[in-house]
């Protein structure tokens, strides 16, 4: 198990370096950043000064090394808009987004698990079909439109929920529904197919033949095996949800990292944008890493398969 964890941390680390290089290169995507920062009215002398100040005159690998070395120590540079360290703005905002991600994820699981299990248990009945419709609609629903529809329903027609801000728990209800419903279909479909496969196996037939209560067969024996693929997809969905927070936080004016990202992009505050791309990728890498570990723990076959690839 330890070998497995070490091996996976190694590849996660390499992945982080590559992804951070992409985040770093964003600043060079549209030509000389010094000219961009100097602005339309800036002279070439201004650009040269900026180049020296930010170290743009050094070779790109050197700059990347400086940037990543500082980032590891928690220094993400200086925000051009807020005129303060990016890190100090970032950590408040990330907290809000992680909270939103968590509540959304809980909503997604509460929706997806019972429906997926029920759809598998009563396959090809109206329950299965209803679950399918809920999944298909969820997959096609653009998050920002769904968010606006909820605003029309719960803030205009029945004014019971606040439309913008993040002060009370009520502010998180609509955003969590939107993000959770966005993530639920993939989890639901995989739970269903995993359960159907598990219910057809020999050990389930044996468990049934031994007279174990049907509820236990379903929830203890079948579910544990059905969960293995679900863990990976859940981690990925959680990662996508954090990225989806860019849209949802903008609609509901939640002061999280997603809205900060959008605003920083509009203000061309590149150091902040770089730090956010890095953080979002980092969260995704950590989540998929944890999912791998959890899966290896749930399913010893996976550990062995991985060790055999040497």
């Amino acid at each position: 198990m330890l070998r497995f964890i070490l091996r996976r941390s190694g590849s996660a680390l390499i992945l982080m370096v590559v992804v951070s290089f992409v985040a770093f290169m964003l600043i060079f995507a549209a030509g000389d950043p010094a000219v961009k920062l100097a602005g339309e009215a800036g002279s070439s002398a201004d650009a040269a000064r900026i180049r020296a100040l930010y170290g743009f005159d050094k070779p790109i690998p050197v700059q990347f090394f400086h940037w990543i070395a500082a980032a590891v120590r928690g220094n993400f540079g200086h925000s051009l808009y807020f005129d303060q360290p990016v890190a100090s703005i970032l950590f408040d905002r990330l907290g809000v987004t992680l909270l939103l991600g968590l509540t959304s994820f809980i909503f997604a699981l509460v929706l997806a698990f019972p429906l997926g299990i029920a759809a598998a248990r009563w396959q090809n009945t109206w329950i299965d079909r209803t679950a399918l419709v809920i999944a298909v609609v969820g997959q096609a629903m653009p998050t920002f439109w769904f968010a606006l529809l909820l605003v029309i329903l719960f803030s205009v027609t029945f004014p019971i929920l606040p439309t913008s801000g993040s002060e009370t728990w009520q502010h998180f209800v609509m955003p969590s529904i939107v993000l959770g419903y966005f993530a639920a279909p993939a989890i639901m479909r995989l739970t269903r197919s995993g359960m159907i496969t598990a219910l057809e196996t020999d050990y389930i037939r044996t468990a049934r033949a031994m007279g174990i209560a049907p509820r236990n067969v379903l929830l203890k024996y079948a579910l544990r095996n059905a969960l293995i693929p679900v863990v990976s997809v859940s981690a990925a969905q959680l990662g996508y949800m954090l990225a989806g927070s860019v849209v949802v936080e903008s609609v509901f004016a939640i002061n999280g990292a997603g809205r900060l990202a959008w605003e920083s992009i509009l203000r061309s505050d590149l150091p902040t944008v770089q730090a956010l791309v890095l953080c979002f990728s980092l969260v995704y890498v950590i989540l998929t890493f944890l999912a791998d570990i959890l899966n290896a723990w749930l399913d010893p076959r996976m550990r062995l398969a991985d060790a055999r690839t040497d």
Partner: protein
Amino acid sequence: MRAQTETIAGERQTRHLPRWMRHTGLTAGAVILVIIVLMGVFAPLLAPQDPYEQNLLARIVPPVWYEGGSWEHPLGTDHLGRDYLARLLYGARVSVFIGVTVAFVSGIIGTVLGVTAGYFGGKTDVVISFLITARLALPVILVALAIVALFGSSLTVVVSVLGLLLWDRFALVMRATTQQIRDADFVMAAKVQGASTLQIIVQEILPNVATNLTVVATLEIAQAIVLEAALSFLGLGVPPPLPSWGLMLAEGKSFILFDPWLITIPGVLLFGLVLAINLVGDGLRDVTAPDSRN
């Protein structure tokens, strides 16, 4: 050998033809899709007015079924007095165009990477798989927004950015499919006959991964359409005054309190289009590979 695979494909088609007709999702999706595509194609003929013509005296006229609506603007007008129906029809063009071109660009990138990884295996596979993982770790929306902001918003920039980002699923599926058939007898036979690697890939592998490629392309078109709408909604997609459904939703957002139809109508179309494409994609997968249904 090729003749044999062709007859197998032919048999499969005839066997599944009635099934295609009975597949409700696929038929319903195809019907909605055809309607929306026709809307876009014939937009100049169907549109009652010019989609760009502003009329500040007739701003936010409601649709005909509300009080104050008229047949002059069947679906009303927006905040600049432009005919909503005309903008919706032209918006269908933008969405369909973006969906198809993005899927084309990302499809080429993803297929080349996926088939290469799947066919050659070994170190090539390790490197390409790593590339796919790295791409998956990048938050698409965030990177797309940042790049559109840096280059300035235009149709070309949106198509290029999304095309360069959305190849992951193509690569994953093409890699897995190629792995399944690379050791098949007909590939071996071609090798024995002295076919070059390129010949094998083009003549033996590609025809056999085409079905899966179509399914992924369909789902990727839907993905691209939603992302374009999201980018436009956030003000960094298709530039105004081009009519994009996402942009129309963004413009209608300020009027959500008193004129929610400005939000519901473009949203219904966007949702309908994405739903239709997904249904066609899911349906195609069911029909071509009934075992892989989930």
